[in-house]
């Protein structure tokens, strides 16, 4: 079942089209990476899904509720973490969560244990009594995540949650999100830094200039853009001759020495156009051709490469 479904969602600001007929679906339980450069329309989409923005045209449903017709039901179903942490002076960490618990009508007897559970989950139990203002940026982000979960929403929408965090805080946040994904939470997470999402997403959508370029399970997207594969082939002896031999092979589109091969390890990066069967035939042909092959490995393209390929193909 789709927890988010948009159809032809369009948002215009004056003459600028921020979203152009966006149609996407987020299945329940997915960790959905929403990838695109700055200004692509990620935040606009998220603001529509959280009822902060009224779309110019099209339809968006969250947990079955249409965002403009039933905004209160949508708010109850969504936990939103914007890209900035709102600070309330003079509040302690537990008071901050207590305030939002009240705002989401969490029953009084449930609130206190829930706040402790959430602080434990985000690793801030020891900061329960600390003023919110005194927390580090990474801690504030984790507290913000706890806030977004205070009413046990069906969907978490996180807008650039790692922006402005130092590497350690980024890793901590990533681990936390992986944990939430493992708990079965549906998470929509945006980022323009693709490596941030590479490890944790089950689904991705690539958006640019308000248009959806690709979306679906990560594996499917990878397969669809990987008609050819990248092989790292390590040879012993005459590397130049091996490169020339490979270059002449009809299934090989390009051969380059590995960029980090300054140590003369004899690694060639090969752009190979073929499936598993063709790859077996290539290995046999290399041996028969007299190449001294030490190792051969397939390089998995990461999200960054996929993104570059998809966006390169866009006019």
């Amino acid at each position, binding site marked *: 079942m789709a927890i988010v479904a948009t159809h032809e969602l369009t948002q215009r600001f004056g003459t600028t089209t921020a979203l152009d007929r966006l149609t996407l679906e987020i299945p329940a339980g997915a960790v959905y990476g929403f990838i695109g450069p700055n200004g692509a329309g990620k935040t606009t989409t998220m603001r529509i899904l959280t009822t*902060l923005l009224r779309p110019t045209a099209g339809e968006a449903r969250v947990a079955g509720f249409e965002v403009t*017709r039933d905004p*209160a039901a949508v708010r*109850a179903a969504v936990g939103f973490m*914007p890209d900035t942490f709102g600070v309330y*002076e003079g509040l302690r960490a537990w*008071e901050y969560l207590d305030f939002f618990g009240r705002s989401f009508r969490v029953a009084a007897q449930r609130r206190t244990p829930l706040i402790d559970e959430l602080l434990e989950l985000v690793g801030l139990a020891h900061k329960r009594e600390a003023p919110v203002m005194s927390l580090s940026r990474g801690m504030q982000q984790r507290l913000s995540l706890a806030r977004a979960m205070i009413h046990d929403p069906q969907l978490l929408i996180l807008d650039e949650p790692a922006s402005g965090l130092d590497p350690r805080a980024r890793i901590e946040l990533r681990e936390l999100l992986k944990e939430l994904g493992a708990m079965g939470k549906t998470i929509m997470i945006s980022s323009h830094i693709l490596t941030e999402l590479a490890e944790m997403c089950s689904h991705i959508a690539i958006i640019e200039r308000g248009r959806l370029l690709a979306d679906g399970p990560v594996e499917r997207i990878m397969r669809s853009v990987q008609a050819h594969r990248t092989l790292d082939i390590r040879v012993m002896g005459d590397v130049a001759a091996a490169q020339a031999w490979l270059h002449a092979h009809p299934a090989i589109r390009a051969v380059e020495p590995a960029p980090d091969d300054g140590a003369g390890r004899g690694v060639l990066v090969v752009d190979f156009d073929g499936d598993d069967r063709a790859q077996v035939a290539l290995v046999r042909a290399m041996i028969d051709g007299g190449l001294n092959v030490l190792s051969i490995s397939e390089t998995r393209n990461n999200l960054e490469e996929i993104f570059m390929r998809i966006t390169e193909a866009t006019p």
Partner: protein
Amino acid sequence: MSEINPLVQRELRSRMRGPRAYVVITGFLAVISLVVLLLYVATIGVSGSEANAGPEIGKLLFLVITSVALVLVALITPVFTAGSIVGERERQTLDLLITSLLGSGQIVLGKLVAALAFIAVLILSIAPIISVSFMFGGVTPADIVVAFGCLTATGLFYAAIGLFWSSIARSSITATTLSLGTIVMLLLGVPFIGVIIGIVVTGRELPVWLGHPVAITVWAMLIDSHPFIALLLSLEHLANGGDLWLQPVTSGSPLALSEPIGAMTLPSPWLMNLLLSLGGTALLVRASARALRPTERRR
């Protein structure tokens, strides 16, 4: 049992933790105390030997304390509320409130009630100073009802003005400037219109319809919308033996612009001021709530 509005609790919690609240209360009481002290010294010097000076001094002290408190409430209240909603926008917390299950009305009312709770503390804190005037006599319980009625009405309506601008403006400075500007316009505008009308009507034969009850009511509403005028008229009305709640309008009354008029009764000026303030506050709260979530469909 339903819980207190979360915004009221949070606002009071964070407001009373900082030093600002105590500085404002101390400054407020210091200004009033200083004025009372100076006035007391001045009046004792002038009328100290007169036999019936006590009640006169008491009335004068009471009027001055109430007026100074009214001026301060009129200036402090909008400053408190003008930063309330736009402050959430500046702190980037407004989106969090809007995406919560709090209704727009709850958010606006929460802000208003939290500001009024503090204003109530200010108003009640002058009780010991006002009690100085009781020592001289001349001040009745009805006078006190009038004074606190005018202070409450002013605090309420001017807080709503600040809140309204806060829901529209993009910065606290703009909201505060617009709020104080609106209040200055109201405070100066009503006397100005009164003076203009006074000049126009002097020595002229005015149309009969100005004696119609509707025209008189509109005229009374205009005059009584000014808290200082309402306070003075009410205290004078009481001093002349008038009723606390009602004022009869008869020939010769300032409200009777045209003669003859039919016998009619209106709420006393302070009560009229309170009713107008309640109505104005309701309208401004509604407008503020609408401005808060402009994306939602109106039903």
